[in-house]
């Protein structure tokens, strides 16, 4: 997994509550058997005016000029500013893959859907929960200031504004450790192989009915 320590960059404000994973990456792109290449289809149904297809040449497609992502001032954004319940809906990890592939490294919102939130950490993408009032303030500042940038400092657990003001955020300490060091979950879990095997032996003896698929 890619490491995350500190990221500074342009902020894209996506002013919409309940952005679901179909919005983030529509279903036709889920047919891919790869983890990469989803960036050009991030927010596809809002970013383009026509219907996107896998393997199509996206550079030839008509852009929706009204969609915030297509405004030149937000080009190259790597911090996404979002609203409540971001990432609701399906469990598709293609959603964080698409955000990551486009170049986003952190997402700031008042709340996230559980499965999406969890999937972000598996991909070196940092979801940060901030109070609604703080998010409201950031939307106002980003929209008023061209080239507005934020710095996300995971080690210090703060988001730094251009004026130096620091917005503290909470993060699960184990996840923080994994992100800072780019640790692989599976490798970590397999360090506990003996404990898993011991649990399994006891569990099989106690509940043999859960081990019947091979019968």
């Amino acid at each position, binding site marked *: 997994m890619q490491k995350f320590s500190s990221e500074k960059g342009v902020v894209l404000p996506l002013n919409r509550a309940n952005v679901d994973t179909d919005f983030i990456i529509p279903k036709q792109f889920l*047919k891919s058997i790869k983890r990469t290449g989803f960036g050009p289809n991030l927010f596809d149904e809002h970013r383009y005016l026509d219907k996107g297809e896998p393997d199509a040449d996206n550079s030839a497609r008509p852009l929706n000029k009204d969609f915030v992502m297509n405004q030149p001032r937000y080009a190259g954004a790597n911090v996404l500013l979002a609203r409540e319940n971001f990432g609701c809906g399906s469990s598709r990890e293609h959603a964080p893959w698409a955000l990551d592939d486009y170049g986003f490294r952190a997402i700031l919102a008042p709340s996230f*859907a559980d499965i999406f939130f969890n999937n972000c950490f598996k991909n070196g993408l940092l979801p940060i929960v901030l109070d609604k009032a703080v998010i409201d303030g950031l939307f106002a500042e980003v929209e008023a200031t061209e080239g507005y940038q934020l710095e996300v400092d995971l080690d210090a657990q703060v988001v730094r504004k251009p004026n130096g003001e620091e917005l503290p955020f909470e993060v699960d300490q184990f996840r923080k450790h994994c992100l800072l060091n780019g640790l692989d979950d599976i490798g970590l879990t397999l360090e506990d192989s003996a404990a898993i095997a011991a649990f399994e032996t006891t569990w099989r003896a106690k509940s043999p009915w859960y081990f019947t698929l091979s019968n």
Partner: protein
Amino acid sequence: MSGKTLYDKIWDAHLVTQREDGTALIYIDRHLIHEVTSPQAFEGLRIAGRKPWRADANFATPDHNIPTTSAERRAGIDGILDPISKIQVTTLDDNCNEFGILEMNMDDIRQGIVHVVGPEQGATLPGMTIVCGDSHTSTHGALGALAHGIGTSEVEHVLATQCLMAKKAKNMLVRVDGELQTGVTAKDIVLAIIGKIGTAGGTGYTIEFGGDAIMALSIEGRMTVCNMAIEAGARAGLIAVDQSTIDYIEGRPFAPKGEIWDGAVEAWLTLRSDDDATFDKVVELRAAEIEPQVTWGTSPEMVVSVNGTIPDPALEQDASRRESIMQSLKYMGLQGGSAIKDIKLDTIFIGSCTNSRIEDLRAAAKVVEGKKVASTIELAMVVPGSGLVKKQAEDEGLDKIFIEAGLEWREPGCSMCLAMNADQLGDGKHCASTSNRNFEGRQGFGGRTHLVSPAMAAAAAIHGHFVDVRDI
């Protein structure tokens, strides 16, 4: 010390290790696999040179990309006309062969939507931990299991370690007491719950559904309720085990037999929350007050009674909710303040992991029997949840009832619930759908979804618009 909730009991029984900050390793009894969220996980195993920890804990069936017309299905895998879909289905077959995982492939009569097939085969059992790379895994909680969706990285993690790294969620109890009115179903209950608590109301919780109206539901009805726990924001929804649960499981192909069965039943009947268990949050609904529900917007919480009207954004005080209503109405092509019954429908979809089981099909067939689909409906389709549901329906003559009424009778799969196969809702078309999500573009680019129960979808097919199924 207070007692334990059902969720506490299953969690505690599966705890392998726990770190100081509460991050735990939870043992997973069953891992269900489909073709969309697994290829990258199997590829990850191959790259790292890993093998499944316990191959026989897994079982797979393709569902999302599977064609549903008989002509396509007769050709087997070659009937999948989209080459990218075909590769995904073939990849699942290849991965299951390579790693020794049981698969019910598209030519197997047992194939179907993974959340229909699991319980149907007895692969879903009470007290199990069950995961799948699909958010509607919450369905299996209807049998008293702890079941939820995971992402592809976690699919790989479960394959490699038989465990999930997780933190315990909070406990929520949603109680529905009293008696449902005739014509009001499990789907209406869960839509009413989502309407009450919102799509983020259950975020961070495991929801236990209880109360006498829930326990009076059939197991299939309970599956419909748990299926949509995720639409209320909760990864997992579950329901206590009772005699109906035991009766449902007994005799299914992968259910335990003989002495092991007897031991299992004894253990399973303890799978309910203790009387003195405490919940972090309790929500109560009265069953008698629930009316047939219809969604009007682009989030499942945008739901009202069939006799209701679409909200007028001008009357909404909260600015962000007003903005959401306006965005939804624009996408849906609807006016605030207009009646639900005045929405003109183009398409009817009866199917999905929410409502494609035999009881759903019986309820829909009962409504359309001897009638004809309205001439204004361009497409009305019934997609059974599995090959075995299809066979059962045909044995009962339901297929003939649907066909004579003018509905198409299809082969099993996810179909137009998310439209990864050829079954796509047209741009700008309104669909009465028994599925679970009404997000923008969900059923097809520009498609407009209204979530309803099977009986309500069937009644809408006959009338061309929504009608109160209690009136017919």
